[in-house]
């Protein structure tokens, strides 16, 4: 193994100093029956050249196709300068910031990231990130139950229009902690929650989850929902798309008092799709709730000589100090992803994010217009949306998507398994990277698929 720095001679010398015969003897505390042994089921290792070839082949699998899939992860243009800076050794391999004296660069970056994301959401404080949007939502559910001293309830209301994967992750994490998540359905035409439907809701709630935009791309009536929740002394958990917040009303401005806790998936901010990850989850909250917020928080302070410095702060929330009473067992953040997002946000600025968001929306509107001009294709919902929309097809979406993929178009996300009541429906998304030629390509490809379909060509 060429990358281990110790030679055989050095190993022997070290073992001699501590009086041990071999490295194996250092693990003698582990019972023999618990040792992993040979691991014969693993294939033999391959060298770097063979591995590089294998990875190249795998990377080719999705390349070249036009992507119109959204559903929680979005293909945006990432300016070259973003990863040029993020790939610098000082950022790329900088390790944990627990020693403030050795991590001022990292800590300053985290502080700036927190400032930017809090500003984008118009919230008072932010943490240094969590693993992804879904687990951030689960953490916020736990936080709301801890923090809501008014109702002391362990019930959460969550619309069915929150991302299906987020529902599953939240269920996995909170199911055995005595917390009940009650799902509420959307209204047929608007794809949104109708607050009037909730007037008969009985019982106390810890929190209400509000997605914006929701999984269908539709825009919930956030002001009405926030005011409804606050009147019931429930906290408001907002789940948002960060790019959309540059254009739409950010959660800090919802209703009369704003959302209490905000989370979401940070991938749109300069992170490539990468077959599903790594991404990062952002989290913000009101100042009054900060001691219940999990995750790392970087703070700004002064040193003994009065110079500005940065450090991890409010660490008594965290498990290395608070142990079983900690706000969470998380003791890390998505450092590299957050570095990338901070560079991306700094580069684009608020105005840049707005114009990207506007371009996404314009392209989705154009795509919807072109597709619904095709016989048998129509929009499923009326009402406002952001950069994603649900269309209904005359034949099952799986078959259409297969036909489109064969023509190099990844057409969208099949909704049948999560929302069977929508039938032959799929979720389509067009971001700022789509040209009008791309939209034409999609429309023509779809036309061909439908014309060739046995159920339709009679």
């Amino acid at each position, binding site marked *: 193994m060429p990358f281990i720095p110790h030679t055989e001679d050095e190993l022997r010398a070290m073992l001699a100093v501590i009086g041990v015969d071999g490295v194996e003897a250092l693990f003698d505390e582990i019972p023999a029956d618990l040792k992993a042994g040979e691991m014969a089921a693993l294939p033999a290792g391959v060298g770097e050249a063979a591995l590089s070839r294998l990875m190249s082949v795998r990377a080719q699998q999705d390349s070249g196709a036009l992507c119109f899939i959204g559903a929680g992860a979005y293909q945006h243009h990432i300016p070259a300068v973003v990863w040029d800076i993020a790939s610098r050794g000082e950022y790329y391999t900088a390790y944990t910031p627990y020693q403030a004296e050795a991590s001022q660069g990292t800590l300053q970056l985290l502080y700036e990231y927190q400032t930017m994301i809090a500003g984008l959401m118009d919230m008072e404080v932010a943490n240094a990130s969590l693993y992804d949007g879904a687990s951030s939502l689960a953490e916020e559910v736990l936080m709301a139950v801890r923090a809501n*001293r008014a109702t002391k309830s362990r019930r959460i209301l969550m619309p069915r229009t929150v991302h299906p994967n987020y529902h599953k992750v939240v269920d996995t994490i909170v199911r055995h902690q005595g917390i009940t998540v009650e799902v509420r359905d959307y209204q047929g035409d608007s794809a949104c929650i109708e607050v009037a439907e909730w007037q008969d809701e009985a019982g106390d709630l810890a929190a209400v989850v509000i997605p914006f935009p929701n999984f269908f791309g539709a825009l919930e009536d956030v002001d009405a929902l926030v005011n409804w929740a606050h009147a019931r002394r429930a906290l408001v958990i907002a789940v948002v798309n960060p790019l959309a917040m540059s254009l739409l009303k950010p959660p800090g401005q919802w209703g009369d008092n704003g959302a209490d806790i905000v989370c979401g998936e940070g991938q749109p901010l300069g992170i490539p799709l990468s077959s599903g990850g790594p991404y990062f989850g952002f989290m913000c909250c009101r100042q009054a709730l900060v*001691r219940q917020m999990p995750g790392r928080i970087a703070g700004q302070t002064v040193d003994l000589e009065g110079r500005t410095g940065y450090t991890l702060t409010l660490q*008594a929330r965290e498990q290395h*100090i*608070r142990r079983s*009473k900690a706000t969470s067992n998380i003791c890390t953040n998505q450092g590299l992803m957050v570095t990338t997002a901070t560079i991306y946000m700094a580069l684009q600025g608020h105005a840049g994010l707005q114009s990207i968001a506007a371009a996404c929306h314009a392209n989705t509107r154009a795509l919807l217009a072109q597709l619904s001009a095709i016989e048998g294709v129509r929009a499923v919902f009326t009402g406002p949306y952001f950069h994603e929309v649900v269309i209904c097809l005359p034949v099952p979406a799986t078959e259409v998507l297969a036909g489109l993929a064969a023509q190099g178009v990844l057409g969208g996300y099949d909704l049948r398994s999560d929302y069977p009541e929508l039938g032959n429906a799929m979720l389509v998304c067009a971001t700022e990277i789509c040209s009008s030629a791309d939209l034409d390509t999609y429309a023509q490809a779809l036309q061909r698929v439908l014309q060739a379909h046995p159920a339709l060509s009679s």
Partner: protein
Amino acid sequence: MNKVPSGLKYSKTHEWVEAQGDGTVRVGISDHAQELLGDMVFVELPEVGSKVSAGEECAVVESVKAASDVYSPVSGEVVAVNESLVDNPEKVNQAPYGDGWLMTVRLTQPDELAALMDADNYSALVEAEAH
């Protein structure tokens, strides 16, 4: 040298109790405890009206280096908490037996007071812990 006022009762977990003469007691942490914990930055107090049980956690004191549970030395109902600690947690360090008090409890089992230590026994406990 830690202060151990003679008129108070003490628990093994370093809380003090002062009878108010009307069926309630005032509770706080001892000088020994505040010195061990360091500079206080935050105190999480129970809600007025909540019930506490002897030996169970009722509050949290957070210093720069640790967050420690405070155990109620008595059983009863919390009738008052020291709200001034929200903005001035350092009072716990500066005046642990005075302005740094944590809560007032209406006793439901007054006999519990007899089980607590007096000043001499508590001083002995602190001495013993030092070794």
